[in-house]
């Protein structure tokens, strides 16, 4: 048998294929066992690798949350801002450096609860930012409180007897606000998710990918759903792929089928294109298309 012995020495850390995109000096990360976040990060790193983009010209911005910690682990120019404010920070960064790809990596609470206003407005403006939202149906970082995504009857530390608020359907909200690319996958749809990330990053305009991911420590535990592994399986097995479906038909109920797929992929001028077109129209040749900071300041 020519198979070599499995190596398991820590010396080989340097060879992990994602290491170029990860801050190895910060490993191990803080995420729990069977948390879906690490998997989603791998998918993003893979997407970036596969796109072959200049990683010097990419930035990631996060708010606060377990998901928000992504900015601390990805080896790009990376900004860990305040809770809910990743998008406006990213908008400023994007406008100042339109030549860079800006990715916002945010949790469901961060992005849609406290950050909800920025979400709808940045989408409305069709700002060329890629937004990845890890929806674990809960506020994980702070210990398992209800989120605007928590399905009805699901338990959280602030809905100890079961949630009774109607949740958002994030793809629908994104689409209604103006997003030009909208997709949803579970964390186990690893290759499809990676592909969506690639499409979203390549897309000029506001692109949004929701990733349904297990929070083992809080969501799974509070709802007696087993481990994150069970949840990972559960989400995947209970999902149906429906590309191009009307987002409003993609509501998520507790423990019922999760519709996944690419829902929206349309063309619409981005914020900066609109800005340049409008000014060109008004000022003619006097106007030099806006190009942002040349990076030299």
């Amino acid at each position, binding site marked *: 048998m020519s198979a070599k012995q499995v190596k398991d020495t820590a010396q080989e850390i340097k060879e992990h294929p994602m290491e170029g995109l990860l801050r190895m000096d910060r490993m191990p990360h803080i995420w729990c066992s069977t948390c879906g976040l690490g998997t989603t990060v791998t998918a993003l790193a893979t997407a970036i690798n596969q796109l072959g983009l200049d990683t010097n010209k990419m930035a990631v911005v996060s708010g606060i949350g377990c998901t928000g910690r992504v900015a601390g682990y990805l080896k790009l120019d990376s*900004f860990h801002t305040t809770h809910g*404010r990743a998008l406006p920070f990213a908008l*400023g960064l994007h406008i*100042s450096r339109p030549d*860079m790809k800006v990715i916002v990596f945010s949790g469901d609470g961060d992005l849609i609860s406290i950050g909800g206003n*920025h979400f709808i*407005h940045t989408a409305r403006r069709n700002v060329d930012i890629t937004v990845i939202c890890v929806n674990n149906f809960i506020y994980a970082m702070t210990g398992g409180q209800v989120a605007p995504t928590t399905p009805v009857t699901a338990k959280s530390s602030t809905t100890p007897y079961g949630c009774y608020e109607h949740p958002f359907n994030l793809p629908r909200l994104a689409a209604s606000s103006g997003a030009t690319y909208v997709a949803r996958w579970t964390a186990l749809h690893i290759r499809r998710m990676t592909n969506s990330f690639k499409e979203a990053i390549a897309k000029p305009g506001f692109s949004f990918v929701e990733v349904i991911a297990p929070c083992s420590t809080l969501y799974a535990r509070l709802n007696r759903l087993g481990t994150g592994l069970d949840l990972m399986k559960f989400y995947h097995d209970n999902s149906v792929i429906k590309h191009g479906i009307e987002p409003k038909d993609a509501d998520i109920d507790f423990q019922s089928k999760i519709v996944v797929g690419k829902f929206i992929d349309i063309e619409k001028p981005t914020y900066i294109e609109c800005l340049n077109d409008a000014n060109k129209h008004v000022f003619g040749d006097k106007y030099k298309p806006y190009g942002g900071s040349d990076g030299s*300041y």
Partner: protein
Amino acid sequence: MKADPRNVLTGANYLDGNHASAEGAIAAGCKFFAGYPITPSTEIAERFARRIPLLGGVFIQMEDELASMNAILGASWGGLKSMTCTSGPGFSLMMENFGLGIMLETPTVLVNVQRGGPSTGLPTLPGQADMMQARWGSHGDYEVIALAPDSPQESFELTIHAFNLSEKYRMPVLVMTDECVGHMTEKVIIPPAEEIELVERKYTDKKPGEAWPYESTNGDIAPMLPVGKGYKFHVTGLTHDYRGYPVINAEAQKLKVKHLVDKINKNVDDIIWIEEKDTDDAEIVMLSYGISSRVMQPAIARARKEGIKVGQIKMVTVWPFAEKRIAELAGKVKSLIMVEMNYGQVFLEMDRIARGRCKTYLAGHAGGTVHKPEDIYQIIKEAAK
């Protein structure tokens, strides 16, 4: 570095304080303004919006003040000089992320055109009651720089100065003006570009892989890292170390907070800008800032005419407070009088520093209009007794 002549409206202009602020920002090379309208500050945004398209910058009206504050931080890290403006209610909303700017050590400028408060208060009338908020409005320990112009001319000049200080000390700088100055129109002389000195941002000269975003402690100013150049740095609003990585313990906290505080405290002599008049022989020294420092002058003139030895200090920088000089004066004069359009805010600091060595008076005012010179005069008389 000199200002770019394309940005400078050299000559005599008839401008209100808000338009003058906008011109100051443009002259300073500001290329990104994210704002949210609020009386009485909006004209700054409006002028910027009108002027910037042909100057290669962007004005964006954000969905709210929280977004505005964050957008200018993002743009500053992206390499553009950035700013916002607001008034009381919006200032309150910006406080959380003003703190982010402090923590990330991000150069940017925030102009607060003060109106009467609290709450919605007096949207169209002046106040100076956000001065302590400027100092203490965000949670946690930190120090600030706050400037107060007394006229459209100074609105122009101090906005430029604010940009310079923000780059020099790598932090958001506050321009605390008010409705009266903001909506007061006067001649503003804008000098030629080559007479406008600008502070350039200092970027690291180390190579990617070798440089970290916070390579200094104890108040020394570390050069920034540029984005998009391969540094792949990380910054966070959490307490962090020189690498920008979060470190959640008391030691890291001490290092970081001390650094933030030292940045100002060690450089007070460079930062503080006060203008003195007749303080040499003064028995009474009047302290004030912004519009109040101007309104007190007729009262002072009247008192001096009557032989009362009144000196005056106009604080161009209100924060950091001119502690050294005021302490010195407190040991020499009979009285110190603070003239401000509030119920006693910067007064508290003056009073503290006086340490009981002289009498202290507050010439306060609830806002809605400036002081009557007569009222100030009466306090001088009282203090002269």
